[in-house]
């Protein structure tokens, strides 16, 4: 799901600016019917307005301490004048965010980068997953993904090994985001990625292992104007299954749309309809940084599956206004069912501060 709102907020401003300059690029719509084609569709789709690769997961140090991590690359195609022959024209921007949640620390660490895709210094390749922004990278090679992040106060280099097939969300990857047919995305997930690699904190590298989740989504028209934000959840279930669930909220906090995918350990996939997904907010945490009140504990229902969500750490807020103009909460969570732990994953909340039609 991830960041669509911000990218869209950005794109709408770009559209407003672009009007003045003549050659306005047109963006393809997301329409159902076309089958996704792998591995080609794991690469970038430059004509679309926005696209992202979103990796979230849990890590474990040698000492057994749990950590949450996320790294996101996305590309956006701003409405700049297509006639501009300059090599520096911002025809495509690449943005990257990374975070590390340590329950022993008071708050999660964050870093972000943004660059125009010029001279190959930042790029999102077509045909396979290969996104680069300076020395940050996410690249696929056979059954493996490799990702590298270097921030000021942390860094990691991880290898993610696929253990199952791609999970197509919605109708064969066509994922509706609202009552209007036009708000939709192409969307698939790769749950259950086995993680090995090195994490560097305070200049000291240490080996880590863990389990992760990758989302890849692209669209030109994501949210309709009535929507202000969403709640999204990706869980690797302890039984080997996987659950993705989301809901889109309106200004009153009511669900405008919802959906999800539930894959059982044997590989069968259930696509969840809007009526089959409920998010009920529980305990809230008020951010001392932004003053936003975030619901950090939840009750979630996905068809017959009901469970509670508990954060690894309350302060997993990420103020990303510098690159994308949004503040969001995204963090490692544990799903607790009536009979104990169901699984672990990431929860992403947007639109709880200012309405996300920002700027």
């Amino acid at each position: 799901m991830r960041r669509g709102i911000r990218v869209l907020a950005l794109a709408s401003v770009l559209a407003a600016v672009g009007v003045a300059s003549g050659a306005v690029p047109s963006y393809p719509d997301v329409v159902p019917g076309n089958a996704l084609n792998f591995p080609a569709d794991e690469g970038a789709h430059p004509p679309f307005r926005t696209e992202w690769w979103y990796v979230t997961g849990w890590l474990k140090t040698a000492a057994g301490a749990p950590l949450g991590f996320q790294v996101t690359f996305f590309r956006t195609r701003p409405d700049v004048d297509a006639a501009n022959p300059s090599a520096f024209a911002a025809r495509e921007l690449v943005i990257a965010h990374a975070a590390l949640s340590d329950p022993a620390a008071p708050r999660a660490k964050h870093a972000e980068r943004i660059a125009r895709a010029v001279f190959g210094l930042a790029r999102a390749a077509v045909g396979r997953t290969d996104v680069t922004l300076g020395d940050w990278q996410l690249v696929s090679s056979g059954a493996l993904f490799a990702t590298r992040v270097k921030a000021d106060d942390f860094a990691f280099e991880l290898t993610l090994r696929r253990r199952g097939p791609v999970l197509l969300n919605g109708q064969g990857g066509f994922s509706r985001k609202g009552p209007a047919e036009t708000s939709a995305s192409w969307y698939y997930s790769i749950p259950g990625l086995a993680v090995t690699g090195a994490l560097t904190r305070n200049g000291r590298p240490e080996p880590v292992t863990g389990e992760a989740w990758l989302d890849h989504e692209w669209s030109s028209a994501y949210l309709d104007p009535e929507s202000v934000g969403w709640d999204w959840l990706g869980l690797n279930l302890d039984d080997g299954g996987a659950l993705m669930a989301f809901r889109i909220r309106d200004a009153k906090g009511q669900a405008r749309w919802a959906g999800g995918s539930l894959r059982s350990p044997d590989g069968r996939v259930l696509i969840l309809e809007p009526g089959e997904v409920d998010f009920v907010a529980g305990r809230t945490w008020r951010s001392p940084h932004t003053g936003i009140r975030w619901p950090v504990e939840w009750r979630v229902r996905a068809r017959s599956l009901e469970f509670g969500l508990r954060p690894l750490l309350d302060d997993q807020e990420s103020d990303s206004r510098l690159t994308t103009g949004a503040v969001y909460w995204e963090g490692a969570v544990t799903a607790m069912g009536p009979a104990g732990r169901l699984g672990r994953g990431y929860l992403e909340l947007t639109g709880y501060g200012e309405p996300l039609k920002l700027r």
Partner: protein
Amino acid sequence: MSGFARARVAFTVLAAQLQDRPERLLVTIGAIALGIALSVSVTLVNASAADEFGRASRALTGSADLVIDGGRGGFDEALYPSVARRPEVTVASPVLETELALAAGGTLMVLGVDPFLAGRLEPAIYGDLASHFTGLLGARAIVLSAAAATTLNVGRGGTLRVRLGREERLLEVIDVLPSSAYPRPLGVMDLGSAQWTLLRLGRLSRLELRLAPGVDPARFGASLALPAGALIARGTDLEGRGASLRRAYYANLDMLALVALLTGGFLVFATQALSTLRRRAQFALLRALGVTRAEVTLAVVLEGALVGLAGGILGTALGWVIAREALARFGGDLGAGYAAGPGTPLAAPATTLVAFVALGVLVSALSSWLPARRVAALAPARALKGGDPEFALATSSGGRRGAGLLIAGGAIAFAPPLGGLPLAGYLSIALLLFGAVLLVPSFARLVLAHLPTRVGPIGRLALAQLQGTVAESAVSLAAIVVSFSLMVSMAIMVHSFRDSFERWLGGVLPADVYLRVAPGSDTVLLSDADGRDIAAIPGVERAELRRVLPVLLAPDRPAVALIARRLDAVSVDRLPLLERASATPADLPAVYVSEAVHDLYRVGIGSRLTLPVGGQGRAVVVAGIWRDYARSSGTILIEQGTYRAWSHDVASTDAALWLKSGASAALVGAELTRRLKLGASLELIETSDLKARSLTAFDRAFTITYLLEAIAVAIGLAGVGFAFASTALARRAEFGVLRHLGCSARQLKRLLAGEGALVGALGALYGLLVGGLLSLVLVYVVNRQSFHWSLDFVVPVGQLLLVALALVLAAATTARLAARGVLGTSAVRAAREDW
């Protein structure tokens, strides 16, 4: 008597002295205050300009570890990815700097940046932009600094009409930076838009780099393979570029201010010397009462220090006010054109202000020290009886020391500049001046001994009086010599400059009309077709196009102006050449460099230079050195054909027009405006106008010099007045006797006026000699090292004689006025009185 009580007695006596002569006290304080005020104002104005320039420079490139600077010509953008990929580089921010011509006339510096990269290096300017960069990506979007918004009178949401070649276009002002972000006028665009919209595709001006921790910038810089025209610079280099010229200008002003202060100090010396002499009996009495020699010295020095404190505080306050007003009215360069315009904020650190008050105290205390020591050294018994008025200046060793100083001062004038400043020149002036002061008694004796004696009784009396008190009059004479000689030297220097400048203007402007398009801009240029259009205008006999472009030859120096123009034998002959090669090597193209290039880059006739033209280093040979008063950072003339073959740049920035005889410049101008359609970017100026304007600008730049000179002389004259007032007081008994012998009051006045005139004449004569000597240092050392151009030494004989005459008259009048009070006393009382 306890020490405390003794000190009290000493102070009571001194306080009585201070109260006794309030007007003299006030003038002495005023003299110190003036000197301090001038120093303070010059220093503050300079510091403010430097501060503003420094802030602007630091705001733009301050946090970069290294800058690859291509100057205005820039370099190919292909350099960017190769540098950005280097592992030592953490951030590489590409910048395109353009002087954008505004439709309303003038230019605006516009930086094309990638806000994401620039924002990481300079968050103060670009931080906010990066957070709402979306608007900036529009092809015509521009963000203005607060100063630019104010100057151009446009705000957020407004439009800015700019000129790109023949066309006018509108840019959209999408935001205005807070005034804290950048102090000077600036526009910021997205790099991609700037390259396209401002017609600079493929070019970058500089790369600003942040290096990984532990990378040595110098070693990394040396490891880069850079194209011609790109230089490695540090932030301090960029700051230094603008500072070097301004610094020289201010160093000159500072020197003038110090002259005023020095003269003020001399005045304190003169006053204290005479007043301690007069109070010898009182001091002797104190000594007899048990006050020690050291205590007497301390008391007199303290007296001087108090005068200095008052003068220092008054002067610092006055200087602060002057600096604030000067900045508000003229800007940081006082109208000379080296720094930003009006509105430069005043930077007045408290430490500087306190230092200047302390300087006032120090100068004044030191000036009192010699007289204090002298009076303390007198044997009390002898001093109580009167007599023996011997002065420190008049020692026989003074002459030898003076001669030694003169020789040292002369020798040091030949030293090279230090850090780009003519410090040795100033030291030489100081040494020469002190040497000359020490030689004043010898000089006075020499001249007085050779004066004719058949001049009537009053004349003889005056002469005899001066001959008898050479030591005493030497003090007042020295005050005149110090201020007058400095004034003479400045007058000769300025006159030489103006005279050379005027003749130079006649030589370098052979055409009738000069045409420039948006001077300094990168976005409006003339084509050869324009040149043909211009030549086809009725009344125009011929038009010559020129390309002026700045090229960087050293990272820490401002760009040199490279001028590509026709350079045939005739036009080379017309250049104000100072040196010329007898034959140039045929294998390399010849260039003609200005003196500044010769001085700053150490090249002479026959030297080979590498010029970055058309992306390559091109070897040329220096065939001549010429004088250019227009650009003190250097000018290089190159044949237009050579430049074009190398650069493929056929655009021009200027044109010189020769009119047919009888053609009207106004009509030609109107036709040019109509045909070229360049609006306010077209600047036409007739040669006669240009000359007049240049001279006006010259005079304005030296206005402050004239003002300071006048003040120095006024202070010197005040010194003469005090000296005469003191001696007149001391000579009441003598006047009484003369009255008894039948002298009329008028004759006495004539006597004093004669003595004054004689002292004035001695001072003027000696001042002319010393001033002439100092002016040689100013013309050949200080000026050359500050501005890198030579002057022809020309003495304004008539002007100097007039001023000398005025000085003699003023001295005579002052002497007469100073003695007015004394002459009114009754003859009997005066004769009886004993000082």
